[in-house]
């Protein structure tokens, strides 16, 4: 009966926060008015909750997902596996900070497994990324080794499929 009980909770209007986040995560352009309709709250309540989420930095930013292959200008992305020497008392944070402050670095994660930091970099060309790695990153104090992988094609990102236009296969009208 476990899922039965779980499911009943859905009806007790999941807290408005979770609903708002779920809707905005999928589409940041949905208006407050529409969110209000969708979850059965007033527009004011939605606006207030979103303001709070922004203020608390739960919502950090509203961004646009771009298919660079179609945007038709030079663009390169790579993932770099970085092994580092953790520093006494400061662990990985200090070295991570030195890395994430570079503009070309779009994401940095501390990983479990055979390497320590995963660094996601973007630039106009692969050459620029290579230069960034051997001029800035690999030579940094505390870094033991790097391995760079270029992204060749994006199939799916943030839950969105890039490669094909899936169309509605349904009959226009059905009983």
């Amino acid at each position, binding site marked *: *009966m*476990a*899922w*039965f009980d*779980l*499911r*009943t909770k*859905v*009806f007790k209007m*999941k807290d408005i926060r979770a*609903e708002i986040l779920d*809707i905005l995560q999928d*589409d940041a352009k*949905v208006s407050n008015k*529409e969110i209000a*309709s*969708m*979850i*059965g709250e007033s527009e004011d309540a939605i606006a207030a909750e979103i303001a709070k989420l922004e203020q608390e930095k739960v919502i950090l930013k509203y961004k646009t997902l771009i298919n660079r292959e179609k945007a038709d200008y030079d663009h390169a992305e790579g993932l770099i596996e970085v092994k580092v020497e953790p520093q006494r008392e400061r662990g990985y944070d200090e070295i991570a900070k030195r890395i994430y402050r570079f503009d070309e670095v779009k994401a940095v994660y501390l990983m479990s497994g055979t390497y320590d930091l995963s660094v996601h970099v973007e630039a106009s060309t692969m050459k620029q990324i290579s230069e960034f790695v051997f001029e800035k990153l690999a030579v940094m104090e505390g870094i033991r080794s790097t391995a760079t992988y270029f992204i060749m094609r994006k199939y799916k990102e943030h839950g969105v499929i890039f490669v094909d236009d*899936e169309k*509605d296969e*349904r*009959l*226009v*009208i*059905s*009983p």
Partner: protein
Amino acid sequence: MNYEKYISKNVREIPPSGIRKFFDIASEMDDVISLGVGEPDFTTPWNICEMAIYAIETGKTHYTSNHGMTPLRQEIKRYLSERFGLDYEIDQIVATVGASEALDIAFRTLIDPGDEVLVPAPSYVSYMPGVRLAGGVAVPILTVAENDFKYTKDVLEKAITEKTKVIIMPFPNNPTGAIMSKEDLEGITSLIIENDLMVISDEIYAELTYDKNHVSIASLPGMKERTVVINGFSKSFAMTGWRLGYVAGPIELVDAMVKIHQYTILCAPVAAQEAGIEALKTERKNGFKQVKNMMNQYNRRRRFMYEELNKIGLACFEPLGAFYVFPDIRKTGLSSDEFCERLVKEKKVACVPGTAFGEGGEGFIRCSYASSMENLKDAIERITEFLNENGWA
């Protein structure tokens, strides 16, 4: 050659489908936003598709037993028990080609020529012709917006005669979105028992209820022995094209239904059965996460459509099940048919006139919200323009 005389009287007399005309108009046009689709817009979850592909790759391409694969029926048994409190042995469960086949074999098993079958009106397009093909007489029971399109005891009482044998319970309902709660059902079970009726309960939308969990009439005292429960994978797992449904009921009736099933169908498609096992098993293990997620998405769209339609002046009652809203368009002075035809021609929004679902549908249109939020928003804008431009706002 005149073929008319070769076509059986029964088939000749079945009227053409009320949605055909709109299908023809809408499918000729570009950029139509369709609110006329009676199936989920989600594609089947990939784990289910992947399992079926694997089954085909590993040579599962043969007949199965008439009843369907044992692991599938074990999963269905477990599902019906855990979800709706319905306890059946696996011999009481048969996998069918969609709920549609389940309806057909139930009709043909229960109905003798002249038997009367109570069918709510409006309701799904197949019941009336299905009853008729089985030789029965379908008796429409008018359900009205004022009663949230539910069956009520008074109306049923008046319709029951000595010939009444079966009552169809299609809740949550297509096209109205009506449900029958436990209390609503309790209000009519004594009448059903007193008149010794059999129930065909079409519960294909059981996973899509937005207020309370669906209650099967078979779970009420004294009802299991007189109910044939029909369900399937189409709506709850977005598996319409797989054609997989099932029927469960008293063993004597199930054995009789299998007689028809074995000679006309033999068995449900094996790949679909493998997919069905995966659907139920994985969802059960994951606490029905995908089903809940789909339901949650529908629920948002449901609220959106219900609110927006009421705001722009097309009154509708709050549907608590399935994925349809059923607004009242009588204030426009148009018939449902005219309204839908003009709406699709002038604004390229396709809906289905209520009349396609039988009596009681006049004055209403069915809008499906199994469509993306963008489409729904766009559709509402176009309907608003349509009302404004014609002075009906």
